[in-house]
């Protein structure tokens, strides 16, 4: 199951590191001008790296990345590059007919890698269907993610293997599962935390509101990580909410913060802060990562019907990978050799994924009847037997020919 990415070079704070964070309360902060704002009225974002790759000071969040090393930074960069490469390969494989569908994360690498690298091994992740970067951070072999998009299974991995739950397609459902899991952690007296990913569109679902209610009432150690990529298929965020999404949390009684979703450092820091609150028994946090879906919603979607190129071009200028590269180069944290080596590694990953997908066998027909129940079921047994007899009738025919 484990892949290259498990050799994490990014910080993983230990359970003991709670000092100085208890009692933190805020909505949003930072004096920095909103980098990704579409409207002048947009609130400021937590940002540590500008789109030009300059490190900016942040009084509240700098401490969460204070001990980050050059190697950690290169690790984050590597994660983003390889995740994007994997994503591009999957998109290409869909175009070649190897996958039935693909939901690309293009543009959301920083939000996913930043938050994903803030997690501890014993934390638990509840993703949607687009968290390929978070899966990468968890050490889930990326080829495992492709089974359901190829149509050979409806999940494809053991969620307990890497504390990374199965992808959830019904919008918002997993936020409740995350909350319940977090409630269980509290009951057990453990200090792990849970993170639930969802989109801006999902924030409208009743399940998400119920998850907010439960997590607040039971003070559950869960971080709600909303990737606001501006669109829910064809609907802009304005069709979901009249207030900035992070402000939703306030009405439920827990803090919300908006972070520059294209700034991997800021995502790391803010998620770290939220996780530490959870571990310290301070309950849920809503993080809104303000980012952008650079491609189509999925490979079935046609964004030219509802959005122009202008917006995309503006966001390309804020590309999360480019931003960190600029910083790495300017600060001499990485040399040409590093980038060249990564390029080779990236190509190798693409090749490995391509080959693995093409080699993925179709499932056995009897898989239909597998695992329908844990304890077995007479009707399933009966139908399996009928199915077997039916299949065998063709075999006889073929044999007779």
């Amino acid at each position, binding site marked *: 199951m484990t892949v290259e990415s498990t050799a994490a070079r990014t910080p993983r704070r230990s359970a003991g590191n709670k000092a100085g964070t208890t009692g933190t309360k805020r909505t949003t902060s930072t004096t920095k001008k909103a980098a990704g704002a579409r409207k002048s009225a947009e609130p400021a974002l937590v940002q540590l790296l500008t789109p030009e790759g300059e490190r900016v000071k942040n009084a509240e969040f700098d401490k969460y990345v204070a001990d980050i090393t050059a190697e950690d930074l290169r690790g984050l960069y590597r994660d983003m590059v390889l995740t994007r490469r994997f994503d591009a390969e999957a998109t290409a494989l869909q175009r070649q007919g190897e996958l*039935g569908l693909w939901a690309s994360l293009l543009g959301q690498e920083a939000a996913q890698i930043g938050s994903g690298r803030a997690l501890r091994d014993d934390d638990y992740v509840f993703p949607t269907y687009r968290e390929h970067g978070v899966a990468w951070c968890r050490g889930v072999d990326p080829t495992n993610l492709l089974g359901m998009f190829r149509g050979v299974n409806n999940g494809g991995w053991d969620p307990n293997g890497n504390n990374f739950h199965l992808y959830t397609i019904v919008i918002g459902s997993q936020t409740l599962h995350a909350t319940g899991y977090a409630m269980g952690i509290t009951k057990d007296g453990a200090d792990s935390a849970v993170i639930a990913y969802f989109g801006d569109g999902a924030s409208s679902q009743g399940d998400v509101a119920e998850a907010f209610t439960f997590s607040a009432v039971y003070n559950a150690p869960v971080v709600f990580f909303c990737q606001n990529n501006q669109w829910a298929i064809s609907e802009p965020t304005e069709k979901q909410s009249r207030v900035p999404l992070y402000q939703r949390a306030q009405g439920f009684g827990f803090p919300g913060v908006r972070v520059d979703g294209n700034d991997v450092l800021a995502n790391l820091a803010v998620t770290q802060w939220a996780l530490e609150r959870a571990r310290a028994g301070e309950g849920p946090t809503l993080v809104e990562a303000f980012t952008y879906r650079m491609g189509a919603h999925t490979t079935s979607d046609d964004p030219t019907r509802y959005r122009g190129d202008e917006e995309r071009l503006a966001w390309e200028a804020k590309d999360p990978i480019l931003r960190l590269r600029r910083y790495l180069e300017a600060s001499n944290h990485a040399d040409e050799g590093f980038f060249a080596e990564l390029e080779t590694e990236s190509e190798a990953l693409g090749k490995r994924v391509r080959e693995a997908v093409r080699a993925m066998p179709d499932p056995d*027909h009897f898989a*239909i009847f597998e695992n329908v129940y844990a304890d077995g079921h007479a009707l399933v047994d009966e139908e399996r037997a009928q199915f077997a007899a039916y299949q065998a009738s063709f075999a006889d025919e073929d044999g007779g020919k």
Partner: protein
Amino acid sequence: MAEKMALAKAINESLRRALDADPKVVVMGEDVGKLGGVFRVTDGLQKDFGESRVIDTPLAESGIVGTAIGLALRGYRPVVEIQFDGFVFPAYDQIVTQLAKMHARALGKVKMPVVVRIPYGGGIGAVEHHSESPEALFAHVAGLKIVSPSNASDAYWMMQQAIQSDDPVIFFEPKRRYWDKGEVDTEAIPGPLHAARVVREGTDLTLAAYGPMVKLCQEVADAAAEEGRSLEVLDLRSVSPIDFDAVQASVEKTRRLVVVHEAPVFFGSGAEIAARITERCFYHLEAPVLRVGGYHAPYPPARLEESYLPDLDRVLDAVDRSLAY
């Protein structure tokens, strides 16, 4: 005016006509506006009727149906779109506990002219929750009417009738037939919404189906004809109510019945039909009523759906078994 058009286009034309004819008709759902829906069924409607008639809703199915109920209370006739079959369940509570029962609870003083459009069924190679056939889960609930067209003309006319109905109608659209073209006469006088139709006459056995399986049954009848068997094909068109008189009439003639649907057989609409027809036609039947449908298993991943879905051979197999009695 008879015109050849795809089933999806026929629904689009029908919605257009309804929006044009009655200012109280509104279309609501996720992505129904600029995008025209993920299947383009509502394509161009927002452009022509505006955002207050063709409404992109927040991503919340309970909200979509719940507010449609409120709009209906205010005299509107909402036609809501659920993007895919598997996503109707967040709205299931509103449909079952509220929409279905409002008329009865208000002593008949309140009408619920809400149409819930659901693209349903498999065969398009989609990921999970995009291929299900949940009609039986709704048919069990009194107060709902459930229909499913199998061709473009029915899609056009049944949508007109569903919108005109003062009862809530769950309108199951066979998504894998969206692109099938058929003649639509927009000036015809349609038959009753809940009447079944014989689409092919036969004498040896009746195949009863609705929605996506009607076309398959016609193919089965063609194949059986080559073997010298005469199958009658009945398009039920409506799942609640079911036109049992039509099924009975056909079975009294052919004496054999096979019901075909994509949904799981267990507790499915075929079970209801088998029970009723056994009661009504006990002395006419030469064989038990047989059912062909899905298994008692989650809808499988795309690469297995051909094994799961009824196909020509599986239906022919049931035909053989029936004829062997």
